[in-house]
């Protein structure tokens, strides 16, 4: 009897794992396709049906990092010239018959993305945690109304306000600046951060803070030494969400940044070369662009599992 129960359990367990594998597989197909395409040689990128097996090459990655020009018809490098080329120049030449003119814009855009994301995530977390602490512990008149008011900023699809924001930013000379995008992403994320962090801070028994206050600590010291360490799970979960939002944001980045502060999502779609749209470079860039979000999430995954349940687990 007992055996059959455990057998039944095993079967259910197996089925669940099987199901998870299928779901994961479905979700990973686009990612696989991106990685797959990014390693294809130029000639195979547009093949239909797509070629599954080929000799992988990293020319797509070289292309995303460089600016190139095609050789005029009839012009070819001599063997000696080819021999003297740098390895990546040779690869590009053999693949697409192009000459590398200069380094591309990708690193610059990547750096922009990193600056904007780190800046906005940090500001969001600092403002959000402080505000959540205030909402959780303070005796504010009409506290619930204020909280709801903060939440309403999320009810509007951000795209709706693109044009007014653009006009405001132009008036304030904030277009195409890092600060501008940091401010904007902070504004969009802070309401979310306040709500999530409030949930976490509500769960920290107030006695800890009272004990510390009686022990001679000021309110701010208490916040830093007692509240923040105990809210790390919430902070981690909130940062991941803020990070991903700011990292992936497209519409505002597209409208509000042109050259100087343009982030990767706004720039990545424009991989138009002389030879047509460069799917390989776009795929390579996309893959490199996905990496930080993946790494960041993996680093914080321990906190995330608890964080996503939003304090559903009681101690």
């Amino acid at each position, binding site marked *: 009897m007992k055996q059959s129960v455990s057998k039944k359990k095993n079967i259910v367990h197996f089925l669940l794992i099987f199901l998870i594998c299928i779901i994961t597989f479905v979700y990973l197909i686009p990612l696989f396709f991106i990685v797959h395409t990014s390693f294809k040689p130029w000639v195979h990128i547009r093949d239909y049906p797509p070629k599954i097996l080929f000799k992988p090459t990293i020319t797509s990655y070289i292309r995303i990092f460089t600016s190139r020009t095609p050789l005029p018809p009839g012009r070819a490098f001599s063997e000696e010239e080819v021999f003297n080329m740098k390895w990546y120049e040779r690869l590009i030449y053999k693949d697409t018959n192009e000459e590398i003119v200069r380094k591309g814009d990708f690193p610059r855009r990547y750096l922009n993305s990193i600056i904007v994301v780190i800046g906005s995530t940090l500001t969001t977390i600092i403002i959000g945690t402080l505000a959540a602490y205030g909402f959780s512990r303070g005796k504010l008149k009409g506290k619930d109304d204020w909280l709801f008011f903060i939440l309403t900023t999320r009810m509007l699809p951000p795209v709706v306000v693109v044009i007014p924001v653009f006009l405001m930013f132009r008036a304030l000379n904030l277009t195409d600046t890092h600060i501008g995008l940091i401010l904007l992403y902070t504004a969009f994320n802070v309401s979310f951060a306040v709500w999530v962090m409030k949930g976490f801070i509500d769960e920290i*028994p107030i*006695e*800890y803070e*009272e*004990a*510390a*206050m*009686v*022990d*001679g*600590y*000021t309110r701010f*010291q208490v916040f830093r030494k*007692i509240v923040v*360490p*105990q809210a790390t799970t919430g902070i981690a979960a909130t940062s991941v969400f803020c990070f991903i939002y700011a990292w992936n944001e497209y519409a505002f980045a597209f409208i509000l940044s042109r050259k100087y502060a343009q982030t990767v999502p706004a720039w990545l779609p424009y991989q138009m070369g002389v030879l047509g749209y460069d799917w390989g470079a776009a795929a390579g860039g996309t893959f490199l662009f996905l990496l930080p979000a993946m790494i960041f999430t993996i680093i914080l995954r321990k906190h995330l599992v608890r964080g996503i349940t939003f304090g559903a687990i009681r101690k």
Partner: protein
Amino acid sequence: MAEIILQNIIKRFGDLVAVNDLTLYIKDREFLVLLGPSGCGKTTTLRCISGLEIVDEGKILIDGKDVTTIRASHRDIAFVFQLYALYPILTAYNNIAFPLKAQKYDKEKIREEVNKVAELLQIKHVLHKKPKELSGGDMQKVALGRAIVRRPKAFLLDEPIGTLDAKFREEMRIELKKLCIDIGATTVYVTHDQVEAMSMGDRIAIMNMGVLQQIGTPYEIYTKPENLFIANFIGSPGMNFINCEPSRDSNGKLVLKLLSDNMYISITNKLQNTLLSKIYEDKKLVLGIRPEDVTFSMRKEKNYLDVKVYVIEETGSYNIVDVSLGVEKIKVRTIPTIKPDIGEAAFVGFDMERISIFDKETGNSII
């Protein structure tokens, strides 16, 4: 160490008056227990003393200094919470060291002080552990350690042993009392457990519905309760109450007429005079008597009352015999060998020197 003075403090939460016009004088080095049922305002009073709550009206003085509006961190008092409130991220050592770090002591000094306290509380072997790895008793000791390490002016303890199991609580009661005597600190101890209060307090302040009912030594509180609430609250089982009114016997002497069964009991001359002088002759009264001041007998003697045995509660060291006196029930404490049958007719006598008389209307004690 210091004396603590509360002058007419009032604390409101919205419409609720949690502490109403409380005046208390806590002497230097005194162990004062704040006792009362839950929701009576005892914890709020403690929090007001600590500065975690600011009083709406009145004044608080610690060591002669007016601290009414001063923040908790500047009052130099220590607070032990019911659930200990040990910082879960810190080890026991760092928990105890935490208040010292606030005062920017250097590392050597901190280690010295923490070790001294750990030795006193016998918790040296758990100093490296985190709170969740500690037993209830050790957690409590660490919480106490955190409180005494700073040598504050006063200790405020909010039901510090309420969550321990019964056996261990008895042990901790003794240790805690000993500790407080050793350090010689002014201590305010909040509890709802009257046994704890009676056994630990130098004096007990009893509160109900935010109002101080009585303050006195355990003996005073037990033998001279000032009103029906205290008489009922203190003692296990509580005091017996019998409705009565003054009356005259055939000789014209003042006696008490028990309303339940039209029985009369004679009272001491002193009590007669008190009743007369305070013009209580026509008022309804409540006679209160502790179960141990009632004598149980199978033979009728002078001034004894007829009763019927209702139920017997055995505890091992004594028996509580519940008897019905007319329509009222009273509890009699007897030696464990007395086991009358249920329904049997018996007699009880009251030790008239030890009775209490209350005004039924106000509930206040007359003598």
